């Protein structure tokens, strides 16, 4: 099944697995309900001389179809939470191979790199727009904010989405696992050019990334 985009990050598989597990469970329930509906429509269609069965309910049935869905949703919640905390809890982020600032604005992404001293907030930082260069197989941690309205940093191939909120600094991370170029989109309505606010993540082999970074300074 390849309706989900090609995955290129370290945690994409965890997220995708959650998706497919839910798909199977809900798919089975969906088919069950639709089949029951069709079956009842055919089997219990009204005919002269028939009378419906006067049945008010069944406590046993109520218990069964309360407990089973409850167990299913609790299971899904627990599984989802395990992945969630890995992706979103800043205390659990891997240590950064690269840390950048991402500042969203109408209608571009401003990425600030740390420069040769490897530290953000120093004089050798440099800013690039709409293209984020990162090394493959190294965790990239970024500080996300906005200068105007709420935007959202969305890289489908990495399965990352994080809102960029003015006045807030939100930390997020990904680790790209395949060299290539991946589209970045804004996923929160942010004005007239919301749909044009695209960028790309350029994932390079480590040595090529280092050369690129050196060239920027």
């Amino acid at each position: 099944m390849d309706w989900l985009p090609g995955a290129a990050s370290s945690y994409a598989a965890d997220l995708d697995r959650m998706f497919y597990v839910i798909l199977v469970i809900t798919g089975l329930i969906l088919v069950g309900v639709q089949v029951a509906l069709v079956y009842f429509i055919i089997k219990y269609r009204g005919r002269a001389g028939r009378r419906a069965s006067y049945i008010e309910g069944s406590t046993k049935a109520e218990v069964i179809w309360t407990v089973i869905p409850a167990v299913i949703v609790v299971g899904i919640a627990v599984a989802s939470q395990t992945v969630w905390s890995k992706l979103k809890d800043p205390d659990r982020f891997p240590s950064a191979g690269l840390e950048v600032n991402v500042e969203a604005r109408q209608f571009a992404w401003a990425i600030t790199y740390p420069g040769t001293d490897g530290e953000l907030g120093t004089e050798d930082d440099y800013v690039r727009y709409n293209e984020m260069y990162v090394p493959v197989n190294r965790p990239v941690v970024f500080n996300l904010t906005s200068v105007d309205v709420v935007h959202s940093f969305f890289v489908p191939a990495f399965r990352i989405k994080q809102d960029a909120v003015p006045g807030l600094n939100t930390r997020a991370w990904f680790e790209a696992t395949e060299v290539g170029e991946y589209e970045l989109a804004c996923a929160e309505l942010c004005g007239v050019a919301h749909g044009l606010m695209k960028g790309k993540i350029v994932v390079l082999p480590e040595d090529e990334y280092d050369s690129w970074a050196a060239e920027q300074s």
Partner: protein
Amino acid sequence: MGTAAPAAAPLADAYHDESSFIRKYIFSTDHKTIGIQFLFASLAFLTLGGVLAIMLRWQLGFPGQELPGIGVVAPKFYNSLVTMHGTFMIFFAVMPLLVGVFGNYLIPLKIGAPDMAFPRLNMLSFWIFMLSGVVMTASLFVEGGAAGAGWTAYAPLSAVPQYTGVSLGQQLWIVSIVLFGASSLLGSVNYITTVINMRAPGMTLFRMPLSIWALFITAIIALLAIPVLAAAVIMLFFDQTLGTTFFLPADGGQPLLWQHLFWFFGHPEVYILILPAMGIVSDVIANGSRKPVFGYHSMVLAIIAIAFLGWITWGHHMFQSGMNPLLGTSFMISTMAIAVPSAIKVFNWLGTMWRGNLRFHTPMLWAIGFVSLFTVGGLSGIFMAANTVDIFIHDTYFIVAHIHYVLFGGSLMAIFAAIYFWFPSMFGRMMNETWGKIHFALTFVFYNLTFFPMHILGMAGHMRRIYDPTQYEFLQPYQPMNKFITLSAILLFAAQLPFIVNFFWSLFRGKKAGLNPWQDNGLEWTVPSPPPHGNFATTPTVYRGPYEYSSPGAEADYLPQNVPLSGGREPVGAGTGEG
């Protein structure tokens, strides 16, 4: 008026409605007339909402191509289309169709009351709603265009005209919503008071039909949620016009505060949009199955559970918002919990049909369609309730698919069921059955062709509210699907024509309804259609619950709530309908 039964005195004065035309039909205080006024107004807004949808779908399916008669849809206009489609559909179509039309029309009739507790307040509620609708419609034509920040109006986008290029339109949106809120609150007060105080003797709470339970609980939700919306939009108005910064980062403001306030209203709002639909579906399925609703008490408890839990799930709209990730955990738990009572309801509807003697009249077809499609919508909700999966599908077309399966496949189908079912009561004539079935079949097919593919678009990562999907390489392979959806949507819109024609034709030329054309147990069918002013010549006495279909105690396969049983099995005073 106390809670004890009023004396069964004839309401002789009620029949002599010698008022002028204006008093009777324009400034009416009769709940039935007000319900019908809401019906005409809401159906008009529903049509407008549909037109806006077709226009935005045109741009998505054929980016940059001229919309016949209008020209190319510009990006700013596109944002307004998206915003106003959602706004009109939620506030001016679905909510008034369920709550304004059927809340008004059904509550007094089905509980055995002569009218609402506060008839003049009721009239005021309708006219304030109309004013609100006029303001919202006017906002489409003002300089700068209509609001363009989404129906969700996130700040700071919505708070600062420079961010959207819209100024007056965004302010009028707020004025309209405040007026709407006032109308809604008046309605809630009326419905709650009426249900508590004016039930006929014998009509205990647990003998009320589920439609009334649902409308009652919905009125309570609205009473508590709408003021939050009103407060939020007023604060937004101040940010827009007075230099405050409630939702702007300067001077200690918080953009996320808008989201919390909006969704604290917004999540209960979606239960306002679905619960009355569920209640109506229960009534119609019982009637169509000739069987009691399976698990009536569980169904009531499920309505209450949904209403209660709905207050603590709002943060699932904000999983990716930048709020503390711990809230992503707590809101996931409450959201998963609320799936359970919804599932219970679906199983109970199936249980109602099981071993029934099914009649497939037009309302029953819509009700079955509701069960089928609401199940899709409810199950798709599980994906986004899982906080991890939501990372990917948030703000994609997967969400759009979910919304429309529950609001159109769910609420709107129940609304159609209700219109076909209670049209005879309102107007004394039947709608044409054949055309009703054609309307259902075409809508069901084109609905699924339009909205099911949106799940696939969402899985591909297709964002919401974007102007031109072809700008993204990863979306280009899905452009044929976008075209397909657009074409299906146009056919879906066209499929409503049989309904429009049928509706108006039947008003004047429909087959006369006679007494109780659906052989239903509701009290509204024990009086002539349309019911006279004051509804009941004498206050009915209720002897049983609302779903005594195929009861062993009666020869007919239905037994209205107010019919006393004689010593034998023949109900005294039955002999109604062709049964």
